[in-house]
């Protein structure tokens, strides 16, 4: 028998207390509950099973569970099975009946082989001395359970340079010096603490990660709905502008997947500070099985962390969560643990020997053999307005193809108002495709298509690309046929972030919106509230691994490209077992083009700096093409918006200056990179209407923003101009002119 690898196994209570027993196996027991498991595709050698039973809910008001009366018997064999009841520490106070977590081991189970057990027990009247617990036991003071109490004193057995259970992390980029040290320089108690120190040599870059320590793997066991309190001590003797140290408690599910909900922040101050205690309380979210703690530094400075205490906080949970969590766990546990995707929602994309013609008709041969699904679930449903949808998928080396076949009896009423890419296509009769290529269960590509073949596309996984800004290499066609409309979507692999993608299994969801007689919405994946829940996506099985032997990349410039900046960094990742000669071509929307070549080692990653300067403020759409040399084959392409700030902006404090005021003041901001800022000069001149300069001032900017003050005490009444000019070397980079009035103020005679 093969090893169990997980799978669907729903445990169901099938008989209420008091149901007639065909064979009563346990003398003395007066009730039983049947517990059963439906088998699935996986064979298991000795599966361990567990469930939580709330006897308050099962037994009602009059009866309570007798002490030591639980017996578990397997139905088929009649054999007793050892079962371990464990009380639920959170619920045990103030309750006449226990909430028990039962754990037992089953005999081997074959494929699709179900199994059932009867849990026998005895009940007694309330108040009986034989009841599960006496009053004092009911009110056992459940002190908070300590999940973690550490002063970071014990060294990791394998690595002597770090405390047990703590790992340093975060990327260090060029232009910064970062330390993550298990230090004995500082300690609030004991001899050690965690230290993070970072210095930016040219000021903080636009996008920084946070250097950190974290307690990986998550080792603090928690239950959904449980309240968790965390405290720790932070010290930050040095902090840069907008910098702070902090801790964060976050939750993971049983498969060590990070959960987005429930995170609690323990914040330090944003000015240098001595040891302070930071605390936070939060509620463990659905699916939570464990928690971990981060200590991190935002921006730059020097910070320490010591004396961390994480405890549960009994009873402070919102029980509503527990009920919901239970339902979700049943489904989540049914999924393959390492995927976290719906087990029963699988679409196998077939290999296409000849790619389909993308024309809105599904008459290509590849579609006849393609994997297909049609089991959509209505989220919003207009009664009597059923809308059947079939989705097919296939792939070749170049691209992934999807076909939507939408049954529609009244095609003449189809709504298709959107006529341009990235319009409000979701307001039309439409189909949607969601693709979670890296299976992070958070980010995804989304493509929405209406019956005209107009589509909306977005990539939520890259900075600045959520929303319609991303225009991927996508080909779409749709056509209305009698009684149905069809859409075909071609997604070039070269447009997907294969550098981060998983091999052959991606998360996927399909959706359909039908406006016939009202709004009906259907999702293929079993979502909770809406289409966009990547944690609940189904799976797309690819016929091959598109990431194997791939050479791909990603832009690193972030959202902002500074005025006049010299290079745009692009990361190239080579997954081949031989070096790759590549060329990165960057094309600005105005046609300006630049390129840079590189050779990337086998299995290596290289950052290629492409020289391209910006001299126009505003948003600049940049297309990045990664090409193989010398044949020019497209390996990856993406279009990214960069915001180019104005080189010089002035914000005057006033546009009216009173005669008794000596200074003209305001704020300036400069949109140059830090390097260029260092050699820039800002000249401020005040001129009369006739152009005569009457005052001036020179500023050497040290930062991207600052204040100005020009001496104007001698200026008389009238209208003036403030002319500001930004230069670098002898080059004029930007200029601004602001008019202001000089008048007698209400207290000119002061």
């Amino acid at each position, binding site marked *: 028998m093969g090893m169990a690898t997980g799978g669907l196994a729903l445990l169901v209570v099938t008989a209420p207390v008091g149901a007639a027993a065909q064979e009563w196996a346990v003398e003395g027991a007066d009730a039983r509950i049947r517990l059963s498991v439906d088998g699935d595709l996986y064979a298991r050698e000795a599966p361990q099973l*567990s469930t939580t039973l709330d006897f308050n809910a099962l037994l009602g008001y009059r009866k309570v569970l007798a002490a030591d009366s639980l017996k578990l018997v397997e139905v088929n064999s009649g054999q007793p099975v050892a079962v371990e009841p464990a009380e639920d520490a959170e619920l045990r106070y103030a309750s006449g*009946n226990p909430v028990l977590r039962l754990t037992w081991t089953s005999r081997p189970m074959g494929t699709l082989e179900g199994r059932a057990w009867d849990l026998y027990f005895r009940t007694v009247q*309330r108040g009986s001395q034989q009841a599960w617990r006496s009053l004092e036991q009911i009110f056992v003071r459940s002190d908070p359970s300590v999940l973690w109490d550490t002063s970071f004193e014990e060294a990791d057995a394998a690595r002597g340079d770090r405390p047990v259970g703590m790992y340093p992390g975060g990327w260090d980029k060029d232009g910064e010096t970062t330390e993550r040290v298990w230090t004995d320089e500082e300690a609030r108690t004991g001899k050690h603490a965690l230290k993070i120190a970072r210095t930016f040599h040219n000021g903080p870059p636009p996008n920084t990660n946070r250097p950190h320590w974290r307690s990986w793997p998550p080792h603090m066991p928690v239950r959904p709905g449980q*309240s968790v309190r965390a405290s720790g001590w932070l010290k930050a003797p040095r902090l840069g502008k907008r910098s702070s140290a902090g801790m964060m408690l976050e939750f993971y599910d049983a498969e060590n997947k990070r959960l987005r909900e429930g995170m609690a922040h323990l914040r330090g101050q944003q000015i240098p500070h001595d040891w302070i205690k930071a605390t936070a309380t939060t509620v463990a979210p659905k699916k939570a099985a464990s928690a971990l703690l981060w200590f991190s530094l935002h921006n730059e400075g020097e910070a320490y962390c010591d004396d961390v205490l994480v405890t549960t906080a009994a009873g402070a949970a919102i029980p509503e969560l527990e009920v919901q969590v239970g339902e979700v766990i049943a489904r989540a546990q049914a999924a393959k643990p390492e995927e976290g995707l719906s087990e029963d929602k699988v679409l196998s994309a077939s290999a296409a020997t000849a790619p389909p013609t993308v024309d809105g008709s599904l008459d290509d041969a590849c579609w006849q053999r393609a994997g297909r699904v049609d089991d959509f679930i209505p989220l919003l449903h207009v009664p009597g307005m059923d809308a059947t949808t079939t989705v097919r998928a296939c792939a070749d080396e170049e691209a992934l193809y999807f076909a939507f076949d939408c049954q529609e009896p009244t095609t003449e009423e189809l709504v298709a108002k959107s006529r341009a890419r990235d319009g409000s296509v979701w307001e039309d009769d439409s189909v949607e495709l969601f693709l979670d290529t890296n299976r992070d269960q958070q980010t995804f590509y989304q493509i929405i298509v209406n019956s005209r073949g107009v589509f909306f596309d977005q990539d939520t996984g890259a900075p600045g690309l959520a929303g319609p800004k991303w225009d991927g290499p996508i080909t779409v066609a749709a056509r209305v046929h009698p009684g149905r409309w069809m859409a075909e979507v071609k997604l070039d692999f070269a447009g997907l972030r294969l550098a981060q993608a998983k091999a052959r299994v991606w998360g996927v969801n399909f959706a359909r919106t039908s406006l016939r007689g009202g709004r009906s919405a259907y999702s293929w994946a079993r979502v909770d509230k809406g289409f966009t829940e990547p944690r609940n996506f189904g799976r797309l099985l690819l016929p091959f691994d598109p990431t194997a032997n791939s050479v791909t990349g990603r832009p690193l410039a972030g959202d902002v490209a500074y005025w006049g900046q010299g290079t745009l960094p692009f990361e190239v990742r080579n997954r081949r077992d031989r070096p790759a000669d590549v060329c990165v071509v960057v094309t600005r929307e105005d046609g300006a083009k630049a390129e840079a070549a590189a050779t990337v080692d086998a299995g290596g990653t290289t950052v290629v700096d492409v020289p391209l300067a910006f001299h126009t403020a505003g948003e600049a759409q940049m297309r990045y093409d990664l090409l193989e040399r010398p044949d020019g084959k497209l390996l990856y392409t993406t279009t990214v918006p960069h915001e180019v700030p104005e080189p010089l902006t002035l914000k005057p404090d006033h546009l009216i200056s009173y005669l008794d005021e000596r200074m003209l003041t305001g704020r300036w901001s400069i949109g140059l990179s830090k390097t260029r800022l260092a050699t820039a000069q800002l000249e401020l001149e005040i001129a009369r209407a006739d152009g005569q300069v009457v005052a001036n001032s020179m500023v050497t900017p040290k930062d991207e923003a600052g204040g100005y003050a020009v001496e104007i005490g001698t200026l008389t009444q009238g209208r003036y101009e403030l002319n500001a000019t930004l230069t670098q070397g002898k080059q004029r980079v930007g200029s601004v002119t602001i008019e202001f009035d000089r008048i007698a103020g209400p207290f000119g005679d002061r």
Partner: protein
Amino acid sequence: MKAVLVAFAVMVVGTTAQGANVWLFDMGSADSPVWPGFAQVTPETAYTADRGYGWLNKADQMRAYVCTRIDGLAIDDISGIYNRTGTFQVDVPNGDFTVWVLSGAMGNIYRQRYMRAPHTLSLQGKIIEKIEYPEEKLFEVAGYDWRPGDDAWKVFIEPRFAWHKHEVAATEGKITIGFQQQVYFPVNAVVVAERGVAKRVQEEIDRIDEMRRAAFYGIWQENRPEPDQRAEVSAAEMQRGYLVADVHGSDDLHPWSQPAADASRERIELFATPGEQEQASFAVFGLRDIDDVTFTVSEMKADDGRELPAGSLTTGLVQFAPWHSGRRDAAAYAIRECLILPLRPTFVGEGTCKRFWLTLNTPADAAPGVYRGTIQVTAKNAPPAQMKLAVRVIPLTLEEPPVERYMYFGTMYYLARAYLPHFDEELFWDAMRAEVRFMRDNQYCRAECIIPRGSRALTEKDGKVVDVNLDDTARLMQILREEDAWPRDNCMICRTGGLNIRFGGHFYRPNNPGVQFIPTEEGREKYRQAIRLIDQRAKAEGWPEIAFECLGEFTNFGEQGKPFAIHVHTLLHEMGVSNTIRGNGPCDMPPIEMGLVKYPQPNWAMMYPEQLDVMRRTGKRLWAYNFSRSRFSLGWFCWKHGITRASYESGVYVNGQPGNVFEIETMFPMGLPTSMTTIEPTVWLKRLVQGATDYEYLYTLDKRMAEARQAGNARAIKIADEAQAWLDDKLDDLPAGSTYVRGDPRSDKDVQGEFWPVNDLDRYRWRMADFIMQIQEALK
């Protein structure tokens, strides 16, 4: 071998049993949380012998209500509906018991849930406690002066709930707990325990309260702003322990603010016309903990010895309070400024600040000149500090424009009707009078044609509407006359949404979502009859012109909003009565485009140039809705676009109970009541007053320029031309219509700051004053 993880979700649905000698019940709705270990009790949990506990009433005699997110025990309650007694029975062995009842609410005013009226608790059929909830308690945290380190749960949540503990004997195997009320009696939880273990149970209840507090803080998070850069401090200020600096009226402070770099620490200077209300503020920034900080203002004297009367300056303390922060559904709050409370000594903690407010009501007969005095700041444990205060009274009189400002909802009328249905009528009208005065004194008007709710609204006979109850309107009109608070544009709004429902229309039905105007001709005819009666009464009584509306913000209902808006305004238009539509988007435009609406009221989202053009063309006057939230918008923006009435919907409470900051539904109040007859203004309202005054300067300058041209005085015309050029230049800066402002329209910074320096409006005002005075001088 790898374990197969299997789980099962147990649904806990209302059958929880209790400990041997202790019974715990959490009252609420079927969907809301149940405190761990407690049995869930809903209105449907009827008593049965099998269950052993439950209500003796029918389910339809009670309601469950879920309030804001606090903790699992108090988040919801059950109460009897109006005038019904609720009786809950628990079967117990005969013996002595202790009973605890947790009662309280964080109710929302629209749901009319509060235990304001006296109510009683009975055990075994005998009244054992009369629970009073005096007016002071209702308002006790409304005027709270928050200080850093305060426990928000202790201040704002815990006082709203109380455990009522009593002893009782059971001789018939049961305990009955009765909740008698004239209105509502919210019950959150009930605990019954044998007396022998009562002490032990009390310990657990205390512990539960601590956990409720922990749950609150687990849910709600404070959004604290980044600290400002520390201001430079002189040696003298360091020695004193605090510094004092001027704060511009449009600047927001938070407790950790630092003085602005250019803020004066020596003087505050104001100018005003006779009769004008002008504002100033300063803040005390603590360098260490300072107790009992307050201030006084000396006599304000001119060089020739004349004085401003002592009563012309009102002093106040700006309250910090927790407010909803971030997204509407976010459980986050921030400490922000809110009310300007009557001046009282306050605490200023190290690294924090408190703001003080000065309102100058310049006497109408004040002689021009500069009046000087001193602000003296004192503290219990620190030396005093002084700032000079100078007021220049300028020789011009502002004209009162025929422009009105109005607030829609959240008025004392609804507050009083909701909370105090059994108050005596005179106190209710005292509250209304207080609101009329409050609005009048702050450039707003409280005129409204009120149709009562429910059966009081109108009388039908032989299938016709023969009378509409306008008693409340008549009383309000009388107060307006007595208080000299008549609307300057002689117009008032009458909302008729209640009539739509009464005659068969609806605003939402589960099986028919959206809105529907009265579907039958019979119903529409009754609606017409009611409208006609109201209009005729108003004309006969000499009340202001009535502009009828029926709902509004039709864009909320999408496409369904359009036909409703067209139907109702077609009817009103055909009747020949005045009508108005308060809109919030494109679905409100069709009746305006069709020329059916006399007074269109666009909000920001409708103020695109092309839409404004349509409204100006089809409407008689342009009003504005949900709009006037900053000085800039109420002043210069209204002037630029010819808006003659600007409204906002918040009024003087914010949906929740007074002081209940955790159940505010996005409202921004102009003021809040700190008693039934006292309303304190917010800092935001004072900015609106500034905007209304800016408008008066613009209006006055416009009139003077016209007079100059009419008089043919060459010098005056030259000044008028110069003023006109300056004014045109400024107005040209402003867009032809507003794009929808995504920032916080409460802040001038997010609105005006897009066009002009944010704090320059004072200087523009002075520029206008200078032009006006020059023209006046030339015309003499």
